[in-house]
């Protein structure tokens, strides 16, 4: 238990990076949000129709941004050896890394998301749902993305390879969360999408640590 807290403290401080971590993700997210109206045109009806979707996709991409560093940094410095040989099973270590990644990046993004949606003309009363969807979806992105990052460790090719592996796997949460948000915007039934998203996130949190640990062991061997 003490080891768990110790590791969590280390991972959060590394992911937070003295403010650099969330700044990068939120900055990218904000920049992307600005780009869309430039591309679509300033007409409010068109923008508000896609507000939720833009925020959701932006969230997915911003989450992928900082994934590289989750494992590669420790792999390069040799710290991953230490973590793999420690008191906690490697599966738990990987889960803690993904969780810390979410807290440092996903949670700030979840706070920024409602502002984005409203800036693009979404309904103000959707703010709570957007934040909740972004928070839960962010967890799924962090864990599935973590699996991709661990798999790409052995390749040293990082970035784009991780995105290529991970994006098709993220189809379900993108569909569930995006549908929940856009249905809410049109006054339709949104609860199913939201519940499915929660179910997916729970499953991802339970299962992906095994894939992450297996991939790390492979890269370390």
């Amino acid at each position, binding site marked *: 238990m003490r080891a768990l807290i110790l590791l969590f403290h280390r991972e959060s401080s590394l992911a937070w990076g003295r403010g650099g971590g969330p700044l990068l993700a939120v900055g990218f997210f904000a920049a992307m949000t600005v780009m869309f109206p430039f591309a679509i045109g300033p007409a409010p009806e068109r923008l508000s129709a896609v507000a939720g979707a833009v925020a959701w996709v932006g969230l997915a991409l911003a989450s992928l941004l900082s994934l590289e560093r989750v494992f590669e940094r420790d792999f390069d410095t040799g710290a991953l050896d230490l973590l793999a040989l420690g008191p906690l099973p490697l599966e738990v270590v990987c889960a803690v890394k993904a969780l810390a990644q979410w807290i440092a990046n996903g949670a700030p993004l979840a706070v920024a998301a409602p502002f984005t949606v409203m800036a693009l003309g979404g309904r103000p009363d959707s703010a709570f749902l957007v934040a909740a969807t972004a928070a839960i979806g962010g967890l799924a992105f962090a864990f599935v993305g973590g699996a991709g990052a661990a798999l790409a460790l052995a390749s040293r090719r990082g970035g784009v390879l991780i995105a290529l592996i991970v994006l098709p796997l993220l189809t*379900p949460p993108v569909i569930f969360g995006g549908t929940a948000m856009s249905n809410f915007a049109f006054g339709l039934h949104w609860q199913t999408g939201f519940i499915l998203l929660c179910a997916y996130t729970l499953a991802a949190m339970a299962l992906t640590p095994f894939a992450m640990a297996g991939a790390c062991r492979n890269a370390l061997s």
Partner: protein
Amino acid sequence: MIALLANPYRFMAFSRWAAPILASVAILLIAWGLWLGVTAPPDYQQADTVRIMFVHVPAAWVSMMAYACLGGASFFSLIFRHALADAAARAVAPIGAMFTFMALVTGSLWGRPMWGAWWVWQDPRLVSVLVLFLLFIGYLALRASIDDEAKAARAAEILALVGLINLPIIKFSVTWWNSLHQGESVMRAGGSALAPEYLTPLLLVGAGYSAAFGALWLSRTRSEVWRRRAASLQLLAALS
């Protein structure tokens, strides 16, 4: 059957005669199925363009089967550390990608006369196949980008298994997504309420494609085994 084939020597002996036989069976079945499909009466709604279905739908079936085979071979390789299973997994991936690509292209060709567009999002099967294509590409990219063969094999196996577990969820989510936006129930001709004149050629071509898949997979696995043998002989020669 699998236990019988797990022995590399038995596999090589088996596949030497099995692959050509499967290939002949495949050609036979596909030719027969397509002939029946071409001579079947035209659909009242889609006229002659329905015939592309006989090429498209079985390709979609086989592409999903191919991923399941990839997942199965990866599972055996990962859990039992079986070299032949790994060779089989490496061999099946490009075949699966090819069938998936074929399904996408023929689906697009089918769609053009029907919906007037080269691609639509209304068909859940087509969209699932698109995501499946991306999964294959991701697998091939990961395998190709890791230099150490053993590490590449292990990482790719894990990815294949993660993809296999995700596949039903992806299918479900895409179908659900589509059902929410009730458009014209377009692909009904590809649905279960098929007239027997259509069902028989479809099943024949499906069986033919499966046989072709089997033949291709067996022969690619054989060449993968030969490649590994050649590589280790080369290494032995270099070291001695």
